[in-house]
Structures are given as C-alpha cells and as structure tokens.
C-alpha cells in the first residue's frame, strides 16, 4: 500500500468539533471537500501486516455481499458523516418540534395526503412498466381518496382492498435491466445509487411538470409542500444514524440498501398487482 498524505480537510474538521453553530457549516463544506480524500488508510510508520489478513480469508474472485461497487467511497463516507450531523442537529430537531405541536391523528392525515399526491409518481411508473392492473388500482385509489377521502386526508381505498402500488423511476430503470451503477450516499437524502438517483431526479421532474406543483403554479406553495414533505418523510422513517452501534454501519447500510432495491426490482418483474 502506498504512503498517503494526511487528508487535511477532515483532519482540521476534527480539531473544530464542538465548535458550536459553525459546526454544521464546517461539516457541510467538509462533506463536499472530503470527496477528494483517499479511502486508503494513512500510514504513520513501517506498516506490518495484521495477524488476520484479508487475503487469508477471501479467495480471489469470491464475491462478498459487503463488497458493493462504490466508486466515490471517499465522498460517500464524507456525506454519511455530514448526514449524521445534519440529522442530529437540524433535521430531527425540526421533526421533533413538528411531532410535539401536531397531534398524532393530524400527523397521519398529513402523511395520507402526501401519499395521495404521490400516486402520480406511482401511476407514471406503473405505466412505464406496462403494469396496467397496478395503474388501474392507482387511478382508482387516487379518485376514491381524493373524493371520499377528502383530498387524500384519509385513505378509504386501502380499506376497500385497493393496496398502494408503490413504484418509482429507479425501479422502472431496474425493471428494464439497468444496473445500479455505483453506490451513492446522497447528502440529506441518504443511501442511493447512480440508477436510483437518476430515478429520483426523473420522478421529481415529473412531479414538477405534471404533478400537483404544476397544477398550483405558485412558488410559495411549492416551498411549503417541499418542507412538509421533507418533515413527513423523516417523521415516518424510523432509521437513526449510528443506531447499529457498529463501526461498520456504513458497510451494513450499503449492503442492505443494495439488497433491498435488488429485491424490489425482482418483485416488479414477477408481479403486476401486489
């Protein structure tokens, strides 16, 4: 292994930890700049091989599910670190405030309403994959929930036996055989890969051009919707950074995310209506 110069950016960041309000900014800058950092360890003297060497345990060519293609790992790890601080000091405190102010019943109404608007994404992707039955279910759900369910605040369609046909453009791409490219840890959004990030951008664009945002055409409403959407999304995600208590949490998330998306894509190929 080569000798590497210390990564100046992250080294300085450590010195400034606990620096109060500037911390988040420093970390944000660090997350982006860390992209240039090496993922190889820094050597501080003559390196001795450890007692248990990787080469002794892994035969060449034997795949291990922890080894996911990760071309920008340095950036991703910086981004993972950024997300930890962002979540801890900004995102979750905001969500906690929301949870304190809002009664649980109203929180559920907001979630239902957002799910109802997102049926547009489900529908376009059901159609892209020619899952006509699923598309039919999605349309019926939207009609029922928007009317009987009062603009989607309630979800009577599920009670009528119409299950949500969740779909996104990342799954559509996977359905047609697009590989996942490489793993990506997106700032704020979290675990993803090149395929799913492309999908995310496409879905957002669709939502913007033909979805509710286009119907209203008011930038304040768009901002409010985006804010509520972000808060609701975090409110409904039980995941907490560092909850695994493992030094290998980054690896574990990467593997589980990849396996989950592979599983979902496999499901798009075998079934129409779930």
């Amino acid at each position: 292994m080569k000798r590497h110069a210390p990564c100046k950016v992250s080294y300085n960041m450590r010195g400034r930890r606990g620096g109060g309000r500037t911390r988040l900014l420093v970390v944000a800058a660090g997350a982006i700049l860390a992209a240039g950092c090496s993922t190889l360890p820094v050597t501080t003297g003559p390196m001795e091989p450890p007692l248990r060497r990787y080469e002794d345990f892994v035969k060449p060519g034997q795949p291990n599910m922890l080894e996911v293609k990760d071309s920008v790992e340095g950036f991703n790890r910086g981004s993972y670190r950024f997300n930890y601080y962002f979540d801890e000091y900004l995102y979750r405190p905001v969500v906690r405030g929301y949870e304190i102010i809002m009664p649980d019943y109203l929180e559920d109404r907001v979630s239902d309403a957002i799910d109802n608007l997102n049926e547009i994404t489900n529908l376009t992707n059901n159609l892209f994959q020619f899952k006509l039955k699923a598309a039919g279910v999605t349309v019926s759900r939207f009609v029922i929930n928007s009317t009987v369910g009062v603009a989607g605040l309630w979800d009577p369609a599920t009670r009528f036996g119409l299950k949500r046909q969740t779909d996104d453009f990342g799954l559509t791409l996977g359905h047609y055989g697009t590989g996942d490219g490489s793993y990506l840890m997106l700032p704020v959004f979290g675990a993803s890969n090149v395929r799913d990030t492309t999908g995310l951008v496409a879905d957002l664009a669709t939502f913007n051009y033909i979805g509710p945002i286009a119907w209203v055409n008011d930038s304040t409403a768009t901002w409010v919707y985006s804010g509520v959407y972000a808060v609701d999304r975090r409110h409904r995600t039980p995941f907490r950074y560092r909850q695994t208590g493992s030094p290998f949490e980054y690896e574990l998330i990467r593997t589980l995310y990849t396996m989950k998306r592979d599983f979902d894509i496999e499901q798009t190929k075998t079934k129409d209506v779930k």
Partner: protein
Amino acid sequence: MKSLLVLAFLMIVPAAAFAAAPVPPTYFYPFVNPYEATVMELPREFEVRLPSEIPVREFVVHPFPKRHIPEVFWYENGLTCSLAYQDREAPLVFLIAGSGSRFDVPRMLKMQKVLYKAGFHVISITSPTHMDFVVNAASGLPGIASDDAKDLYRVMELAWQKVHGDVRVSSFMLAGYSLGGFDAAFIARIDEREHRFNFKRVLLINPPVCLYDSVTALDQLLVDNVPGGMDNFDAWFRGVFSQTMQLAESWGPGGLSGESMYRTYKRMQPSESNLAALIGLTARMNAADMIFAADVMNGGGYIVPKNVRLTSTTSLTRYAIVAYKTSFADYFNEWLLPHYQMKEPGLTRQALLQRENLRALEPFLKGNAKFGLVHNEDDIILVPGDIEYLERVFGDRAWIFPSGGHMGNMFQPDVVSAITGFLKGKEE
C-alpha cells in the same frame, strides 16, 4: 375450623414462598422452542404493562478524559448513560446491558421502565463489549470479566458522581442480563473490597456460567446452521433476507411489531435452523464490532495493520469482512490469551478461562443472601449441568422458569415479579 384454616394457610404460604424460589404454577409462555423464544418478540397480551413515558435523562461520562480518540470513530464522544429518576427517595439500581448492547437498546429501555415502575431509580450502563464502551471506557482489551468489571465499576462511580445531587437514594442495587448479569457478579466482588456502593442486592438475569462455553455455543449456532457451511453464507443470507422482505410486506404498515410477528409466525413457521443461525449471526456481529474497536484502540496488529491511521473516509470494508469471519473464540485464543500471557508469564489457558467462569466466584456467591438469579431451563447459552449448578449455588434465591429461551420471557409478568420481588426484598 376457621382458625385451623388460617393456621394451615400460615404454614403453607411461607413454606411455598421461601422454600425453593417458586415459579408460579400458572406460568405460561407461548414459545416452547428455545430458539423461537429467543428471537420472537412477545405479543403484547402476554407482556407486563409498562408506562409509555417515564422521566429519564441522559448524561455522558469520560473515564479517560485525556484519551485520544482515533478519527475513524469520529462519532464517539464519551460514554453515554441514562438515569430514570423518582421524585422521592428510593433505592437506585445500576442496570448493565447484555453483550454488545448499548444502554438504550429496546430491552434496556423496557427493563428501565419495569424497575422505575417498581419504585427504583435506574442508571443504565452500556456493555463493556459494545464499541462505545471499548472506545471510551475500556482500560485494555475487553472480554475478560474480572477486568471488564473494573472498567464498569469506574463508569458506575463516575455516573453516580454526575447524578448524586439530583436524586435521593436510600440504597444501591445491581442488576444485569446475559453478559451484564455475569459482569454484575464480578462487580459485586470488587464492591465487597471497595465499599463504594455496598450493594444491598445483586440480581443476575440469564447469565452464562462459563462465558467461553456460552459464546462458543452461540457462534456454533451460526456455523452449524448455514446450509453448506460458512462458504455459502452470502447465498443463505440473501434467501433469508428475501423471505423476510416478503413477510414484511404482508405485515403492512404494522411493521415489525410483536403482534404482527406472532401472527405471521403462526401462519408461516420459520425454520428452526434459520432462527438458530440468526441468533449466532447476531452474536458473531457483536463480537466483530468489539474486536475491531479494540484493535484500533490498542494500536492494531490483529485485523488492522499496525502503523496505519484510519480516517473518517477510509474504507473499512476489508476489515469488516475479516472481522465478521472472526469469532470470539478466535479472538480469545489468538489475541487475548497471548496478551495476558505476556503480562503474566506462566498463565495457562485454563487459568485464564477460569476467570471467565462463575464457578470462580462460587465461595463468594454461595449462601450470600444479597445475590439472586432469574434463569430459564431451556436457555440456549447454557451447557448441560449449568442449571443444576446455578440452583445449587443460589438456592432459594434462584427463580428458574421452564421455558423462555435466552431472555425471551424477560417481560412476562411472572418473570417481572420475580425480578422486582427479589430487588424489593422482604421488608416491603
């Protein structure tokens, strides 16, 4: 006639209560298979009722304030503990988490509520085998109970210093489950010398008798139950993962709650070997986390090469793969033993193993009224003869339940009353 009845009552009841720590005759536990009991979450209707919120605050202790924490552990900043507090004077229980667990895992939070509800203040402490403890509070290599107990004792003293102004405490108790119960016995021995707390009662819940035997048994569950051996681990895990996802979908928005798991379980029985392998896998992953953290904190040489500095962006994948291929027994034989032998020339493997055995504490435990034990006959971490041994040592302060696996029944009402009953003692 009436007085005869009363007399008979008076004679029978104390006899039944104190003869041999009775297990209620009505004890019912839905899982009779010990692997199921260990893995499956108990449905709410079988569980003791607990308050939804209790007053708790978290605080951080720094046993080694000048310690340099390597950058790869950028998220570590002191050892967090928690205090559940009563607003009146009450006894305080130090609660030690099981192997690889933090102070705030669901089981610890629930046990904290159980003890709070029974009228205790509770300080919850992370296991010395969890990476947070290894990085912030371990004085050397983790895994030898007598030395881990010294580190735990130090943390408990610091924790007490942090909170003693805020709570009124009448006496101190100590409790722990699994490895935490085992640790508790060793901590109590230190306290016998140091007298910082003078524990009134010490409760061991589902502890191992011989730690090495127990962790080896757990690891063996993984090795023996992956079809085709560990070389097929990936394929096996993918299969289990996809099965779980399929089930999770059918559970719907209820998610992984106890009731839905129980319902699903009744519909589609998961295979016993898969359950066993998953228990073994959890133990293996806990060990891997501890071993890696200990390696980095001690300058490397086992999995991480010496003279390398891991940063927050260093790839750890290769170390993770090797760590997951390392069992506690490997760590013990290849690193702990030589390490201790270097410090104490002439130390044999047998002598070091003896320090990992409750039998080493027998003279101290036997006939000592402050110790209590709650255990299950079918606990998978025990080897044949262990239960009989524990019954002999703890006598009428041993509550042995017929089923429940490894801690599966911890919140079953009869188990809870054995736990709180012992800690509360006879005077209440």
